[in-house]
């Protein structure tokens, strides 16, 4: 019963959330936009003159920017590929009858709950360290030279670490979606003579399509902002070999104290994230009507 | 007491008028059934009476007192929902007690009423269970129990049997009728099933697109449907409706004859080929084709009658049971 009275009460109840989020969104965003047009360095006090698009020009022409864009794309793309393919495989596997499903599930999901700094540190020291790491030991046993992962292949190493953290997420969501598949559909296809592979390809995979899209979009949003793993393992290096856009903006703003350039980088990051966000929002919005 | 009067009640959602102004009186102690195809506004009408929807115009009176602006709880009505709407986190006892608790009743009065209701509805053994542990029929009874304990002026039922399987439905139908016999409280019952309407009602209200098509006792509606819609809606199998030359012979646009009012006789005026036969044991339904009257004429013959598909049979309508309808679809007296 939506009467006038309850409508007013509803607005009153929603107001705090809306006002807070509006402030959270508009004030810092407006400031970022404003700063991005100023020459503003915390190390150089004085007036901060308006410089138009100079910061953007500086940021975009910086060789580190191109490296960061490429690295960001490689990071996001690589992790998505590993987690989605691995997630589908794991979801199919965990959907099979077996003993100890509960424990297997718990083990597979666990990495997602490990805080990024811990997982970065554990991988960096206990596994990837070229002297004392487990991987070095395995290489030694196999008669190979230990490989210094974070120096020789920093980006790939980070992709590995972050994939480990996000694989459970993809698995869990795809498994949930898989289990919502009507078993009669599978039985019908079995009656129609479909093999196990055909059932996967023609029934299960299309059923998962929606969940896969959701996984891709949500992970992309988070993966564009990978930070702690880079900070802990490589500090973006060597050179800019593992610097992504988020880390570059951080370095500009809080390491070089160049507020203007950092802000310009922030605006670019927002634009990139928004491109993904639009697709994600459409998906979720459609679901809201259903 | 439970006399409900609707005076020019109308309901519109935005620009769409779902119920045009409508008058209706439900007498105290009556079992009234609102029946009609889905989307005819019968549930909306019930919810207007309950107070779960605001009326867009007109007035509702309960026992002569204006109730239009009263909140649902103050109208003294109890409702049984299609989904039963039991509180899943409460035991059966707590579910049934809830309205009494809201009314601030004393502990012993609550206990007395709940125990009585449980006994009437055969729920005594289930009082400590939760709704999730009950079968559909038992949930239904809990929902009714929750309504009974309030001793309301009238009960409102919103398609209460539609979630039950066929056998249970017949049983519950009987139980609700018996309940009405015993309590003699006004009941307003919404259904899309004309069999439920015919078997339970004192008075049937046939609705279409928010309009009342006819109000009357089940047999009134069966014998003298006011128009083609009611004629086609009430009765199972449905009435045969015949247009054209045959109707013109009777000075009508359309004539109607119920399947049970057609006899299979050697010298009947109509003839056709037997199609599908449905043998119910007590009756046999024939679908007769190629009569030149309508696509199919349904005939109901008592007992076990055998005609093979493809046989030609002759039919004779009982002339005194013929219904005549004019150009406007209304009954011609």
């Amino acid at each position, binding site marked *: 019963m939506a009467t006038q009275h*309850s*409508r007013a*009460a*509803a607005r009153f109840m*929603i107001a*705090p*959330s809306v006002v*807070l989020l509006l402030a*959270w969104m508009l004030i810092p*965003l407006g400031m*970022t936009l404003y*700063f991005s047009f100023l020459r503003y360095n915390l190390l150089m006090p004085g007036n901060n003159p308006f410089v138009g698009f100079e910061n953007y020009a500086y940021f975009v022409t910086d060789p580190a920017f191109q490296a960061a864009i490429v690295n960001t794309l490689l990071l996001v793309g690589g992790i998505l590929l590993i987690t989605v393919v691995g997630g589908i495989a*794991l979801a199919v*596997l*965990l959907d099979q*009858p*077996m003993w*100890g499903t509960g*424990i297997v599930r*718990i083990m597979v*999901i666990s*990495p997602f*709950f*490990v*805080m*990024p*700094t*811990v*997982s*970065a540190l554990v991988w960096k020291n*206990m596994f990837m360290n070229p002297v*004392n790491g487990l991987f070095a030991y395995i290489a030694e046993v196999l008669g190979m030279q230990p490989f210094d992962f974070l120096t020789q292949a920093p980006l790939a190493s980070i992709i590995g670490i972050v994939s480990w953290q996000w694989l459970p997420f993809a698995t869990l969501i795809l498994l*949930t*979606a898989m289990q919502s598949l009507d078993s009669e559909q599978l039985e019908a296809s079995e009656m129609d003579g479909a093999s196990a592979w055909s059932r996967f390809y023609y029934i299960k995979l299309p059923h998962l399509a*929606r969940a896969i899209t*959701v996984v891709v979009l*949500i992970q992309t*949003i988070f993966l564009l902002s990978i*930070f*702690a793993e880079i900070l802990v393992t490589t500090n973006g290096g060597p050179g800019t070999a593992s610097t992504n*856009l*988020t880390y570059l*903006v951080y370095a500009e*703003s809080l390491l070089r104290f160049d507020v203007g350039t950092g802000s310009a980088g*922030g605006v670019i*990051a*927002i634009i990139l994230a928004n491109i993904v966000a639009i697709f994600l*929002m459409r*998906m*979720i919005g459609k*679901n*809201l009507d259903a | 007491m439970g006399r409900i009067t609707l005076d020019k009640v109308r309901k519109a959602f935005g620009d769409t008028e779902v119920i045009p102004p409508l008058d209706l009186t439900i007498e105290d102690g009556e079992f009234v059934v609102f029946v009609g195809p889905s989307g005819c506004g019968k549930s909306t009408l019930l919810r207007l009476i309950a107070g779960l929807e605001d009326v867009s115009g007109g007035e509702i009176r309960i026992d002569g007192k204006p109730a239009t602006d009263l909140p649902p709880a103050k109208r003294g009505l*109890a409702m049984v929902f299609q*989904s039963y*709407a*039991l*509180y899943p986190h*409460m035991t059966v006892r707590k579910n049934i007690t*809830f*309205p009494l608790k809201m009314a601030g009743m004393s502990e012993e009065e609550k206990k007395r009423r709940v125990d009585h209701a449980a006994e009437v509805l055969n729920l005594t053994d289930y009082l400590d269970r939760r709704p999730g542990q009950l079968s559909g029929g038992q949930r239904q009874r809990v929902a009714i129990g929750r309504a009974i304990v309030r001793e309301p002026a009238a009960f409102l039922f919103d398609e209460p049997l539609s979630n039950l399987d066929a056998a249970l439905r017949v049983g519950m139908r009987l139980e609700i009728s018996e309940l009405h016999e015993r309590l003699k409280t006004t009941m307003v019952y919404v259904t899309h099933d004309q069999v439920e309407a015919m078997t339970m009602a004192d008075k049937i209200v046939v609705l279409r697109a928010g309009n009342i098509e006819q109000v009357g006792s089940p047999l009134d509606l069966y014998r003298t449907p006011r128009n083609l819609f009611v004629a086609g809606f009430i009765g199972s199998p449905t009435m045969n409706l015949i247009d054209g030359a045959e109707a013109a012979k009777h000075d009508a646009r359309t004539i109607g004859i119920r399947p049970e009012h057609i006899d299979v006789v050697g010298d009947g005026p109509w003839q056709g080929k037997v199609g599908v036969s449905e043998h119910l044991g007590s009756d046999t339904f024939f679908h007769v084709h190629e009569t030149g009257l309508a696509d199919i004429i349904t005939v109901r013959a008592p007992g076990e009658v055998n005609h093979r598909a493809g046989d030609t049979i002759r039919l004779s309508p009982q002339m005194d049971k013929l219904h005549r309808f004019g150009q406007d679809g209304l009954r011609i007296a």
Partner: protein
Amino acid sequence: MARAVTTKTKAINTAIAWTIAILIFFPILWTVLTSFKSEGTAIADPPVFLFFDWTLENYATVQERSSYFRHFMNSVVISVGSTIIGLAIGIPAAWAMAFVPGKQTKNVLMWMLSTKMLPPVGVLVPLYLIFRDWGLLDTRIGLIIVLTLINLPIIVWMLYTYFREIPNDILEAARMDGATLRSEVIYVLLPMAVPGIASTLLLNIILAWNEAFWTLNLTAANAAPLTAFIASYSSPEGLFYAKLSAASTMAIAPILIMGWFSQKQLVRGLTFGAVK
């Protein structure tokens, strides 16, 4: 499918699944095991797996030599605090949107979601400056504010999807039964909403506990939660595997256990109800 699966198939599935699961879980297992070793055993060549002298000494050292407990408390205060405040703001909003939906409800929800899509780095600079000027840098309250705001959309969304599943019929039944708005809320809505609120609480604590952008950038020694404290081990002098493992184990254990319990709700919360 109600058919007997051959024991052989099941055995093969089990073997493959367990192997993969153990591989995935291994880094956590290894960390936990290492935390019970002495520093020497921790870097032994060849590595020892189970047969070593188990010791609790690393846990004791981490407690004594560092301010571990303070950082642990920071984590607790910040994650629980931001969650409670978020719920206090979010419950009424989700409630109103689920039960009194208006024409704008969908738009408001989508817009809230869009704030979550904002990359944190886009507002790093102004937030850092605001925090510096207002004396919020390296304070618990500052982090509570930020984490409340970044997780508020998830809270509202998750609650909204739960509230929307409460059938309207039941609320109407309560109204017919004479419940006032207050008793409707207390006796009917709240008990039915408790599971949803609980899962929202749990997921949000997990997210806040593991948040590692703002906690790293806005704190130093004082208010640093475990995320930032652990990061300090990345400097070379922190290269003591056993102690690192002990600190890590303590940092992830509580959340790991909470996570195991909330894995089902997690899906809904993290996909904004798009996958259930």
